[in-house]
């Protein structure tokens, strides 16, 4: 607003600096180094220990197979990606309202927390065949399993975020007539946003896992299905190709999720609190 800004102890008072931007070169170089090292170890180990191709194929042969089967991989990856994205969106739609409900009403917490924790403790892989049996091979059981696997971290984060609002802040808001929906919009959501945004990134990678689990159990397409078929046919090279594609999909999900979370947090005005990258 002003050009000659006041100073505190000789330091200019400005909006907090974000250190992330200055480290952009390192941000790209470091992950490349770790990935390259991983692939190098893999490439060296296969001939060194004379590992047969059906146990661990060399990186070169995996890349060759991925190139040959690229149309199959792309179509399966897009099938998996679509379910994962839809499941994640659905999951956000379930987790945030649920977290608000539980965080804001003690009775809802008593009522809903035990079944939620019980559900979270169950291995979703065990539930997957049931949903397939009930709902068939369509998208529905896959979406449900993805939601089940991804909603819990975000629900918990929303609850923690709601509970981070202090009693004085609640009173301050109430004394202005800021209650109900306004209270959620002006106070609760911005308070919870940094927590939810961190959980959202975890859930985004879990979404890919969730969809794969569902595809293992019952699906006519997707990377999980491809992985299952390739393993059954002892086509280890293709199975590795599918796994590598899953990993790439996971990274893509994480990056997109991190950007989306940051935009949403900024939209709520609480961006400068969420410096966790």
């Amino acid at each position, binding site marked *: 607003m002003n050009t000659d800004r006041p100073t505190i102890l000789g330091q200019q008072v400005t909006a907090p600096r974000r250190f992330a931007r200055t480290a952009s070169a390192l941000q790209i170089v470091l992950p490349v180094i770790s990935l390259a090292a991983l692939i190098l170890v893999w490439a060296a180990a296969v001939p060194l220990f004379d590992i047969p191709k059906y146990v661990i194929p060399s990186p070169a042969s995996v890349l060759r197979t991925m190139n040959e089967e690229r149309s199959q991989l792309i179509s399966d990856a897009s099938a998996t990606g679509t379910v994962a994205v839809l499941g994640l969106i659905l999951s956000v739609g379930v987790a945030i309202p649920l977290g608000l409900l539980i965080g804001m009403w003690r009775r809802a917490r008593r009522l809903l927390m035990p079944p939620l924790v019980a559900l979270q403790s169950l291995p979703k892989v065990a539930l997957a065949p049931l949903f397939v049996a009930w709902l068939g091979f369509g998208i529905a059981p896959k979406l449900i399993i993805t939601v089940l696997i991804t909603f819990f971290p975000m629900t918990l984060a929303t609850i923690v975020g709601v509970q981070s609002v202090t009693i004085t802040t609640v009173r301050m808001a109430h004394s202005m007539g800021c209650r109900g929906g306004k209270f959620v919009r002006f106070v609760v959501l911005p*308070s919870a946003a940094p927590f939810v945004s961190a959980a959202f990134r975890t859930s985004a990678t879990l979404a890919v896992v969730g969809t794969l689990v569902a595809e293992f159990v019952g699906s006519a397409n997707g990377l999980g299905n491809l992985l299952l078929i390739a393993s059954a046919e002892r086509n280890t090279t293709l199975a590795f190709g599918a796994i590598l594609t899953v990993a790439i999909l996971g990274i893509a999900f994480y990056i997109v999720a991190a950007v989306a979370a940051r935009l949403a947090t900024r939209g709520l005005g*609480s961006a400068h*609190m969420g410096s966790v990258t």
Partner: protein
Amino acid sequence: MQDRTPAPVSVAGPESIEGLLISIRGVEHDYVKDRASIRALEAVDIEVAAGEFVVLLGPSGCGKSTLLLIVGGLLAPSAGEVTIGGKRVTKPYTDLGFVFQDPALLEWRTALRNILLQAEVRGLDRDAARSRAGELMASTKLAGFEDAYPGELSGGMRSRVALCRALLHDPPLLLMDEPFAALDALTREQMSIDLQSIWLQHRKTVLFVTHSISEAVFLADRIVVFSPRPGRILDVLQVRIPRPRKLDDHESPEFTQAVGRITDLLRSEGVLQE
């Protein structure tokens, strides 16, 4: 001093000029700690006239902050009732400005946007609120810190942001819980002077909690002195020093006499010992 006081934004009804009558009748408060019921406040009766400046003075933990929360409808009394402008308070009373002990700023909003929260929540005119906020920030020496986040401000500055927020909508009633506690002695004096001039211009009804005797005498029309917990009213003193009171009035005989009387009261309760 007068010319620095911001012009009011017309927000509330006709009441906003005259202030409000507050009546506190038989208000008690108990709270439960470790399954034992503890009495925080003995039956308290106070009548505050419209436009009056009443200071609640007492040692820490005497329940004066609790009483303020009850008046604001933020805490239900265990017994008794509060009426404001003839209406019984049963839910948060919103036609007021409340300054809490803890500034309760929203960490994700800048100083200016914390002040403007008041206007956003109440749906007040944006431009009017913005210019009023600018004037309030200037008069509380916050100019230039509009875009600073609470985490970047000193304790005193945070308190002043909270004060501006409470004054933004020019409320007819101010409830203030040790608003100047986090300020250094000099800023504190200045804020007392500024608050007096705001009050002289707009004659709001003010309930002001403090444990500073000289601050109480400087500001109050009437001082309600509380005993240690469970808080009960020891005495009510009328302060008749003419307004606007000046810093020099601290040395006037009336001032020292009032301070002396309160000191004696508190000494007799064992709050002050020599």
